Structure formats: C-alpha cells, structure tokens
C-alpha cells in the first residue's frame, strides 16, 4: 500500500485500470475532502453534499477506463464533479439547457497572469466566500476552481470544457461582478 501512496494520482489510476481496484480507495482518500469542499460551494444540505460526493466517486470508478493516464487525474475528477453538480442543481431548480453561450462562441485574447492577482488572492477568496450565492454560476465555478481549488487556466478549461481564453474572460468578469457586489454590501 505504501508503494501506491508514493505514486502519482495518474499512476494509481493506471493501476486501477489494470485491475488493482483496491487502490481506488487511495484516490478517494486523497480527493474526498477537496471534492466535498467544492460541492459545498454549490449545495447547502449536508445530505445532498454527501450523496453527490458519493455519486462522483462511483462515476469515477465506473468510468476509470475512459481516463487518459497522460492527462491530469484531478482535472478528470473535477470534470465528473462539475457534471454531477450541474445535474444536482438542475434537479433543484429547472434551468434552461443552453446549447452555447456567447463567451464560448467568440474568440478572446488569452488573459496574461497579473502579478497583482497574487497579492489580492487571499482577499478575493474572502470576498468570494461571502458573496458566492449572489454570483451567476457561469462565473462562480471558474472563480471557485481558481481561488479555492487553485487550478490553473488550462486545468479549469479542461474541467469546464471551454477555451482557455473563455476561462480568462470569465475570471475577469467574475472578479469585477464580485467586487461590485461586495462594495454594495459594504455601503
């Protein structure tokens, strides 16, 4: 077991794929808290969160053979989590299924990382935590993945299946909206 713990997530997943199904538990242990924290940003009921997280790991186990071990396991798992959470939210409130939105339709220049962002990182996390519920899910999810799960632009693009430039534009707009909500709250 210790040998498995020393392996990367991708190597453990490969091991599961080749039949060593017991080691899937290591992946569950590694990601359970992260996925729970991620789900908590979208759902409020403890039972709901527990059920969704359980479903995410069941789906991951069932579909492990579709995971490309040359890619990042975390992005793949967050993708499953994203789908499950979207489904869970749809069940709660009927939202229209959009074929596309304009953010993904048109090309945008890729936003370069801004050094000021690093200074503001902690501050943004606090604002995000307070105003999360007031933010459109289109902007909420990339912000959570960026500030709480600390994923990079490419990984967020892989999780949400949107172009990297769209990740940049959504983070930028999300930050602006978030700041204006925060300012209104403090007035």
């Amino acid at each position: 077991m210790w040998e498995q713990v020393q392996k990367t997530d991708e190597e453990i997943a490969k091991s599961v794929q080749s039949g060593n199904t017991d080691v899937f538990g290591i992946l569950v242990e590694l990601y359970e808290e992260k996925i729970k924290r991620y789900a908590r940003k979208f759902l409020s009921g403890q039972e709901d969160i527990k059920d969704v997280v359980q479903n995410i790991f069941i789906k991951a186990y069932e579909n492990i053979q579709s995971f490309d071990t040359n890619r990042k396991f975390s992005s793949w798992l967050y993708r499953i989590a994203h789908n499950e959470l979207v489904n869970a939210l749809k069940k709660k409130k009927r939202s229209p299924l959009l074929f596309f939105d304009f953010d993904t339709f048109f090309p945008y220049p890729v936003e370069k990382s801004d050094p000021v962002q690093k200074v503001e990182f902690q501050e943004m996390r606090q604002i995000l935590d307070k105003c999360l519920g007031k933010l459109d899910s289109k902007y909420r999810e990339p912000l959570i993945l960026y500030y709480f799960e600390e994923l990079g632009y490419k990984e967020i693009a892989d999780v949400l299946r949107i172009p990297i430039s769209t990740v940049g534009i959504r983070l930028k707009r999300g930050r602006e909206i978030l700041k204006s909500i925060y300012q209104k709250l403090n007035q």
Partner: protein
Amino acid sequence: MKPRIYFLLMDIFSYGAVILAVFFSVFFVSFILFTLKISGFWFLLRFGLLGFKIFIFSFPWLIFLAGLLSLLFIAFIVRNFEFSWKNPLLYTVLAILVLVLISGVATAKTSLHQRLFEKAGQNRLPLVGNLYRRYGLIQPKNTHMGKVLQKMEHTIQIESQDGQEIIITIPENGKLEYEKDIEEDDLIMIIGERKDKTIKAVNIRRIEDTQMIPLNFPTKKVK
C-alpha cells in the same frame, strides 16, 4: 467498472454519427444546388423584385431546414471532442460550414444527382426516390421554360418542357421590357399566366446552362 471496449465503442459511435451527419448535410446542400439548377431558379433573380419574390416563395425551405438541422447536430456532437471545445465555437461552426459547403458544391458538380433524379423518374430509386420526385424539379406557379421555335413581332412560339408548342403573347403597349435579341433555339424563361397553349407574358429572360427537363417528370407545383 465499465470495460475499456465500452468507451472505445462510444467513441466510434460518436465519430460515426458525425460522419453520417456530414454526409446528410453535404447531400442536402448539393441537392438544393442541383434542384435550383435544373429548375432554372437562379434565372428568377434576373427578373427583379417579382423574380426574387417567386424565388423566396418557391425555395425548397424544407430541404434547407433538414440541412441546417444536420449542421446543428454536427456542431452539438463535435462539441464533445477535445479539438472543438478547446477553441471558440465560432471556429468550429465556420469550419463545419466551409467543409459542408465546399463538399456540397463539389458533389452538385458531379452527375450523382442527375443519375438519381433519372432513376427516381423511372421509379427505380428506393428510399430517396420520393424526395427527387417531390422536390427535384420545382416549377413555380406562372413560371415557364421553353425553347424558342419562332419569333414574331408580338408573339414568340416556344416548345415547352412538356413538348407542346406554346404561344407567348407580348403586350403591344410596349410595357414589357424583355431581351429583344432573343433568337430561335434560345432557351427562355417566362413569367406569366398560362391558359391552355398561350402564355400572357409579364416578363421574359434568356437562360443558359439549364438542362431542359421534360415535364412528364413529376414536379412540385408551387402556388
């Protein structure tokens, strides 16, 4: 745990569905181009506003819609492929559109539709035969084509698509501005009401390139 073969089959199914949808889109695009060509539709645009109105009302919109739906279906499935969602959707849609249009134009230039059209006319084409019989040759109301047999001062005698000799009457008041240099053996398109073997011309234009399709072939009459 789902076996690896399951995911492989799902991938094959997705790619297969896209290939099939591309095939249908190309078929519909080339079919529309073919039917516009043999029905002489492009020449309608030379008749000004009246021709444009007939063009719009007689256009095979149902086939156009079928082609459009196939394109949307392709875009919908292709969004699941990595190469697609990594780029703006606009690029994917444009790439599919260009691919289908180029392939459609190329297919329309082959003799494929002509052969299928002839087979459909002889009732030797299963499945899509009805499509060709119903939408292959569209004849808009009050629009006629024919070959000039004789030209007189106020009348033109033509051989119509149904092989009949028809007299086109041109109003004597000179209000009809038609191409005066029309000669014998020219193919012409006439807009005007036909009564038995006479057509009272509202407008006449010379046409080229269009094959004269015998009218004993079932056509769709557009009102």
